[in-house]
Structures are given as C-alpha cells and as structure tokens.
C-alpha cells in the first residue's frame, strides 16, 4: 500500500474494512435495505394522472336524472384538471354510513328543488376533487356555459416526482445510519468485549484508531451513495443536475457530523441497551422531522428552527439542492456550516469524555 502511512493506521483501517465486508448481514442492511425501500416507495408513489373517482348518489326522488347526467361519456372519462366519475346508487343511510367509515369519498343527495347536497370530508384531497368534478358536470348539464375556454400547459419533468424527493432523503438516512451504527454501535461492542481496553494497553497511537474509524467510514460512503444514486438514475431516471464534487463535499461533511454523533453516543455507554436507546433517541426524531419521506415544511412554523438545526435536515435538503436543483457550493454554505458545527461540537465533547474501558 502507500508506504508513507504508519503501519498501525494502515492495519487498523484494513481491519475495519475486512470486518465490514465479511459480515453479509451488515452488507444487506447498508445496501440492500435502502434499495428495497427506494424501490417499494418509488413504485407505491409513482405519479399517475388522477384516477377516476367513485361517487354515490343517494336513492330518492330526482336521483335518476343526476345519475344520468353523471354517466354521460364526457363525465365518465374526465379531462384535464378533473377525474373521471364512476357512479353508484345506495339508500342515503347506507351511503352516509360508508362515508363516515371512509369507504366513500362523496355522497350526492338530491334535493326536492332540483339542486343537490354534497356530503364529504373537506380534509380529503380526493373528496374535494370529486366534488369539483361532479359539480362541474351537473352545472353544465343544467345549462351553465363557461365564460372562456382555458388551455392547460402540462409539466411532467423528472425531478419533481416523489422518487426524486425520496432518493436524496435515503442517502441522508444511510449516512446517518452509517455514522451511528458503524461508529457508535461498533465502539460499544468493542467496549463490551474489552477490546477497547485491550487496545488501550498497547502503544497504539490513539489518533490512528480514530483516523482508521473515520477513514473506513468515508470509504464506505462511496458505495453507500453510489448505489442509491445509480438506482435513482438508472431505474427511475432521476436527474443529477449538480456537480458530483459538490455532492461529495456535502456527503462527506454530513458523514463527519454523524460520525461525531456516533462517537458521542458511544463515548460512555457500557451496554448494547444503553447505546441502542441513545441511538434511537437520536435517529427517530430525525427520521420523522428531517424531511426524508415527506417535506419537513409540513410541520408548524414554531418547530422549524428546531427542525432546521437537525443535521439530517441540512444533509437531505443540501443533497436535494445539489441533485435536483444543481446548485453550487456557494448556495450550500448554510447547510455546510450547520453540519460542520455538529461535527466539531460532537467530536470535541466525545474526545473529552471517551472511555477506553
């Protein structure tokens, strides 16, 4: 290998690499699992044109004419901006019960004066769509004329789909897992097996131990990130608009932040229970808050400062900015600053309180 590297550093680094790739189970969790997650979620949330909407007309005087109006071919087919309609009829009581239990989205109750009452849950997006579509059809059937003829310009660009949002999130998630499992859990296991203590009894340069750990972590990043990027690119046609170098900078700084957090959770813990608890306490809030699976902007404004301070939020939004928007380093300064602060802060504390035994 490179002759100028100290033997202890080289041996520690190689030992760490070997230990990883000789554990097929770990290889699966790091590579297989995120890929399966991307595939499953990517397929489940594929963007499709709005499906046709099933609506119910309550039986009673006037219901036939409504059913007839909603069953003409133009209404069944749908068109730009509105789903096609499929109509059934049921007694009102039954239809209402089904609506309340979530099995129907819209119940149309004919009124004696020729109008209708729409029953639906306004917080369900598809119910609102169905209501608008039904109302449009019924009003036209009764002679309403459009004031003007709108034109639709349709955008269906890669980069704005769910899968494009998801893949950078999964890269961030994998980087977090790598730091916490690959450093935190690993170190605590070494402490439990008295291996840390055994190393401390040798003249091993302690900085080499840390450098080897970080070096192996950064080495594993390359396949970690490449696998997900390739999956996004080749299977889902995700665009990669920014430079790979910028991407690498974001990933490395993010990985250092999570390596520091991993080191910190491992610095004192003496049992797997303790370290698992600490790791979950760190990871679960970020799984939920940091916008991996859905945009963190959905959380209330009061929570945003907290959410923006989390390293995973900064890593995933930074990755999205590079991959999907193609921004350069200059636009990523806030992300990189927050991530660096995490890295420096956690290393600083961890190295002071770390226990070898």
């Amino acid at each position, binding site marked *: 290998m490179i002759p100028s590297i100290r*033997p*202890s550093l*080289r*041996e*520690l680094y190689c*030992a760490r690499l*070997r*230990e990883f790739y*000789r*554990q097929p189970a770990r290889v699966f969790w790091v590579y297989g699992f995120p890929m399966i997650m991307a595939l499953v979620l990517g397929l489940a949330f594929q963007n499709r044109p709005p499906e046709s909407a099933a609506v119910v007309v309550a039986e009673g005087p006037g219901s036939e004419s409504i059913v007839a109006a909603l069953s003409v071919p133009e209404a069944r087919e749908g068109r730009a901006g509105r789903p096609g309609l499929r109509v059934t009829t049921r007694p009102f009581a039954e239809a209402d019960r089904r609506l309340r239990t979530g099995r129907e989205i819209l119940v149309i109750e004919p009124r004696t004066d020729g109008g209708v009452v729409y029953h639906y849950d306004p917080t369900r997006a598809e119910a609102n769509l169905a209501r608008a579509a039904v109302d449009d059809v019924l009003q036209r059937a009764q002679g309403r004329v459009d004031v003007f003829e709108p034109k639709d310009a349709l955008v269906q660009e890669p980069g704005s789909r769910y899968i494009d949002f998801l893949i950078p999130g999964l890269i961030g998630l994998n980087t977090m897992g790598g730091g916490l499992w690959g450093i935190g859990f690993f170190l605590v296991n070494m402490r*439990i*097996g*008295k*291996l840390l*203590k*055994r190393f*401390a*009894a*040798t*003249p*091993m*340069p302690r900085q080499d131990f840390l450098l080897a750990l970080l070096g192996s972590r950064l080495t594993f990043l390359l396949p970690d990130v490449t696998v997900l990027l390739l999956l996004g690119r080749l299977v889902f046609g995700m665009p990669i608009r920014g430079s790979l170098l910028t991407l690498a900078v974001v990933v490395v700084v993010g990985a250092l932040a999570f390596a520091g957090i991993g080191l910190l959770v491992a610095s004192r813990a003496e049992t797997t229970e303790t370290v698992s608890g600490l790791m979950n306490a760190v990871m679960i809030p970020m799984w939920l808050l940091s916008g991996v699976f859905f945009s963190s902007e959905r959380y209330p404004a009061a929570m945003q400062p907290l959410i923006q301070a989390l390293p995973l939020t900064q890593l995933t939004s930074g990755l999205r900015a590079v991959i999907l928007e193609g921004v350069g380093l200059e636009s990523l300064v806030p992300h990189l600053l927050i991530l660096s602060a995490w890295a420096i802060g956690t290393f600083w504390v961890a190295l002071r309180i770390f226990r*070898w*035994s």
Partner: protein
Amino acid sequence: MSCQTVIGVRNLVKTYPGRDGPVHAVRGLDLEVQAGECFGLLGPNGAGKTTTVEILEGLNEPTSGEVEVLGHRWSLDAAYIRQRIGVTLQETRFPEKATVAEMVRLFRSFYDHGLDGAEVLRRVALEAKANAFVETLSGGQQRRLAVALALVGDPELLFLDEPTTGLDPQSRLQLQDVIRELQGRGRTTVLTTHYMDEAERLCDRVAIVDHGQVIALGTPAELIARLGGEHVIEFAIENHGTEVQASEFAGLEGVLKAVERGNGFELTVSEPHRVLPRLISHLEATGRQLGRLTTRHVSLEDVFVALTGRHLRDNQEPASEAQPRTRRPRRVRA
C-alpha cells in the same frame, strides 16, 4: 540483572464508588517483583487481583499508593512502559471475522520492536490456525491467541490475568505448558489465578491476596513449609457425634495440627508413616470405626485455608475452625 526490581508497589489502595457504599477492592497492598521471575497473585474471586494488575498495566487509576513498573511511573512515562509490557485481560472478545494472523499483524503494528508473527504463533502452538477466523477457535485457542497478542511486542514484562479460568482441564494444562515454555527467556511474568495447582506449577513466587491485601508471600515451597508438615491425613469416623473433638487427635505424637473438616478430620503431619499406626491404635483403643482414610501432600490450598479459614474456590464450606466470615457483597463482573 537477576535481582533488579521490575515492579514496585507500595501501599496501593483502590476504592470504587459502589451503589451501596464504596467498594474497597485493594486496601494497602505491597509488592515487589524481580526481573526474570514468574510471580503469581493467588486469591479467590473478588480478592482484588484484576484491579491490581490493571493498575500495573496502566488501565486503571489507583486511589492512592505508589506504583513503579520497569522503573517508570505511569503518570510520567506511559509510552515507555506500554512499549515494553504485554497484557492479556481476564476476558477479551476478539473480532469474530478476523483471522489469527491478521490479529497478530494488527497488534504487531503497534510496537516499535517485536517478534515475527509466525514465531509468536509457534510459541503459543497456534501455527495451524493462522488463517482461521477467531469465531472458529475453541476457548483454549482463543486464550492462546490472547497470549500471542501479548507476546508480539516481545515484552520485558508479561501480565496474564486468570489465563486458564473457565477452560476445560485439558486446555488448561496445554496453556500452562505454553506459559512454562515462555519462561526462561529472561522475561518477567505476573500471573493471577485462583487455581492453587496452577500457581504451584507456574510460579517462582506467590503472593496470596485476600480482601485486597497480601496475606502471605514466598515461593510455593516456603508457603507450604510454613504449615509445618508436608502431608495431610484425612479421615472420618463412622457414626460419630459431637463427643469426638479434633483436639483429641492434636495430642497424638507427630501431629502438628488437627482440624475438623466437613464430616471428618484433617491432621497435618511431616511423617505419615509414623503417625498413621498411632492414629489407628488410638481409634481401636477408644472403640471407633474408621470410615475413610487418605493422605496427600500439603498444597497452597491448605495454606490458604490455614490463613483464612476459607477455601479458595467459591461454593465451598468454610472450615469449622474458621473465624466468623466477614462477608462483603461480591459483584459478578461481566
């Protein structure tokens, strides 16, 4: 070189903060280990052996007391000492997916000078396992790997903490052979054990440790000689009640010491061939039936029992002569 002090310990104290009050693991321990000897720390579980050697290895901080290793102090010359000592911990779990040779190469890389990997494996009889994963090694082989890793730096001073505890008898003997082989190269070894026979077999000098203090020190032969006799006659009398007292046999000519133990008696003697006929005629004269009779050499176990009234190994009855036992909570260490 022969009478140079390698380890000097004066009034060593280590107190751990415990959940129910402080634990006094080591309470004023003194030691001197000379170059080239194999020195044994012998004592029951919880005596403070591991705490003491881990302080000598620089892995634990003493509460108070002075410690000098190879003429240097941990607080000033840790790097110097670490290059020159080899350590096996009481228990170490090595990475399952590393091979024996890889572990040796890794540890070798930490030392400025040391032994060739193949040579180290030869000394612990693990050459055949060089390319085996750690997870495939037997318990005894893993301990020998631990010894190999302690040897790679060709240490002047070797620490072995309970090297054979938990092994089956055959693996114990094999490892004891390995350790004996390592002797006679001018290296100093400090060994802890709670096996008497191991200390007798391997150690030039032994310090018997109990409750964090050295209660006896000397060569195994010296310690045994201190009991006076070298043989023990063990016997039992059929259907005897409280009317038979050990003192009755202490009066027999040639009996140095008599104690009641379990359901029988133990007589310490130097000449069993002279005492036995007297014992038998005494029993006949008093009309008692002999239940069993054996004789054996005095061991360090007897020394320990004589000193503390307790056996070294756990789960054994205290001798009937024992002073009331000062029981301390014992923590099982993972």
